[in-house]
């Protein structure tokens, strides 16, 4: 009988190729960027100049605020659409569910660029929706190149990421709970608010965490569908990287973005622990 440590080592060794891949192609470059953020732009030597400039320019703070706003907005919007979808899917037979899941995933499989252009056709000034509104005498609504357009574009991409964790969480609830409550006299609404919803919170939080982290890094959708106020971290990194050619600044922004994501992830996972304890208590 091998000792526990030897067994663990052997199992861990299966992960070595993946670990090597991640360390060399992900961790090393990440440390390279961290190192570069401390460089001088005009020569050699280390400095905190890039970070000093970042925290003293209003540009960075505004962009940080906008990024957080857009990311939180994306979480709320996708939650709004994804929860009913997941609820509906949880009630389906497995075969039907698989079919519907394909429909949920279709936008996920389409390229971002194609989706954004198709949204332009739909939401544009002379797009399909505005033409329909014009038939009723309503003047065109601006749905593109503003925050609304960005929210639609981001949600369209992020809904599948929200649906899956919530669906898993809902599926894990034993159906007897609902039946027991119905026998005791609870109406459908009560069953939902007192049993289903609280028990699905871990899934909601997991999905929100995922969607939030993903949307922090988004760049193309705000750039294509947003207006002048919808500048996010990705745009800022691009600005310093390719327009200003100040790579230490670009690296510093990237580092701060990663730190923000980590901070949010830690915060939300604390909430997640809290909510799963809550759901254990209530069941």
């Amino acid at each position, binding site marked *: 009988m091998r000792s526990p440590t030897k067994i663990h080592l052997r199992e861990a060794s299966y992960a070595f190729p993946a670990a090597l891949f991640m360390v060399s192609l992900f961790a090393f470059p990440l440390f390279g960027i961290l190192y570069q953020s401390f460089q001088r732009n005009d020569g050699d030597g280390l400095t905190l100049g890039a970070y000093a400039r970042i925290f003293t320019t209003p*540009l960075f703070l*505004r962009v940080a605020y906008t990024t957080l706003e857009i990311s939180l907005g994306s979480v709320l919007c996708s939650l709004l659409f994804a929860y009913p979808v997941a609820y509906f899917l949880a009630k389906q037979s497995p075969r039907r569910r698989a079919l519907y899941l394909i429909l949920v995933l279709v936008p996920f499989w389409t390229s971002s660029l194609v989706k954004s252009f198709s949204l332009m056709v739909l939401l544009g000034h*002379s797009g399909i929706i505005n033409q329909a509104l014009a038939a009723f005498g309503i003047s065109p609504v601006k749905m593109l190149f503003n925050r609304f357009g960005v929210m639609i574009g981001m949600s369209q991409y992020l809904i599948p990421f929200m649906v899956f964790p919530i669906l898993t969480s809902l599926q894990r609830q034993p159906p007897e709970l609902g039946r027991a409550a119905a026998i005791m006299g609870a109406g459908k609404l009560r069953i939902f608010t007192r049993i289903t919803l609280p028990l699905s919170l871990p899934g909601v939080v997991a999905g929100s965490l995922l969607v939030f982290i993903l949307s922090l890094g988004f760049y193309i959708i705000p750039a294509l569908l947003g207006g002048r106020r919808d500048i996010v971290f990705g745009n800022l990194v691009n600005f310093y990287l390719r327009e*200003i050619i100040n790579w230490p600044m670009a690296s510093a922004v990237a580092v701060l973005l990663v730190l923000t994501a980590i901070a949010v992830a830690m915060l939300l996972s604390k909430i997640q622990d809290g909510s799963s304890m809550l759901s254990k208590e209530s069941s």
Partner: protein
Amino acid sequence: MAVLMSPSRRSFILGLSAGAIGSPAYIRPGWAKGQRLVICGYGGSEGIAKRRAFYDPFTKTTGIEIITASGVDLAKMKIQVEQKDVEWDIVDLIDAWVPAAARMGLLEKIDDTIVNRADCIPQAKHEFAVGGSVYASGIAFPTDRFKGKVPKTWQEFWNVKAIPGRRSLRNRITDTLEIALMGDGVSASRVYPCDVERAFRALERIKPYVSHWIAQTEQTVTLIQQDETDFTHTYTSRVKDLQEANVPIGFSFRQNILGIRSSGALRGTKNRDAAMRFLDFMMHRDRQIEWANLTGDAPTRKYALAMIDPRVRKWIPDLGNTDNLFTNAAWWDGRVDELNTRFKEWLLI
């Protein structure tokens, strides 16, 4: 069954490895034959015109093959020069990119023993780049809406009461600063040195009426087509292409902003002599005239204007017209970064 399978598998592998060994010669046809140049440009219809006016004639004359790349990017140039792994021998640059690239040490000094730039306008004679042609930008507008009530000068562009409509400008400060001054009433000859505060005040006034601050040049004309905006700042080449495709778009030839298209050799290129020969070739009078006929740009070699195709004449910017503004790349050098950052901050408010 196994006997039938293995020879076919073996021959498959043999064929694959033969292909792999032979492929370098196939992928880079010039490798065995002699020299080749890699030129990075802006692609699109401009790239096609460059093939006809410069690249193919050059290959015919000298036998040196030309391979094109697109996506000119100062950041990518910087990586290549720093890593001493220069892939692009020649890059196309416009206006302020030339002093910027020169200051970053990215370009080879132009070898005047090979490149002849006598009797060219002064803007063609930068120490590190050759200026091959002059392009123009100005106000574009739709011709199927507004019934002619469109701005033709920058002051009219700024006059939102007299000429209502959605405006669009570029999302960078270069050109936009000068446009703002002209919109505020400054004549072209007095734009430089720029009164930055006055320009920003003028931009503040037009801000509520600007529907798009355009990032992609393509959109400066497509947004008009799609009825997402009405009056934009765009280039003659874009409008010319669309008019030739019968799109209802018009262009004002008043108060145009002139810029210079340059080309330079990346520092550390392994084909320096061939690159210099190409840069010289680009400046030959007959080449410049062919380029002018294809694109509507003005040649930088003097006395070439008379020989241009009369049908293209209307597109050629008038270098002598004092109403037009020639971009002053030297003024921008050293100021672009700070002003561009200020502009981006201003856009966010």
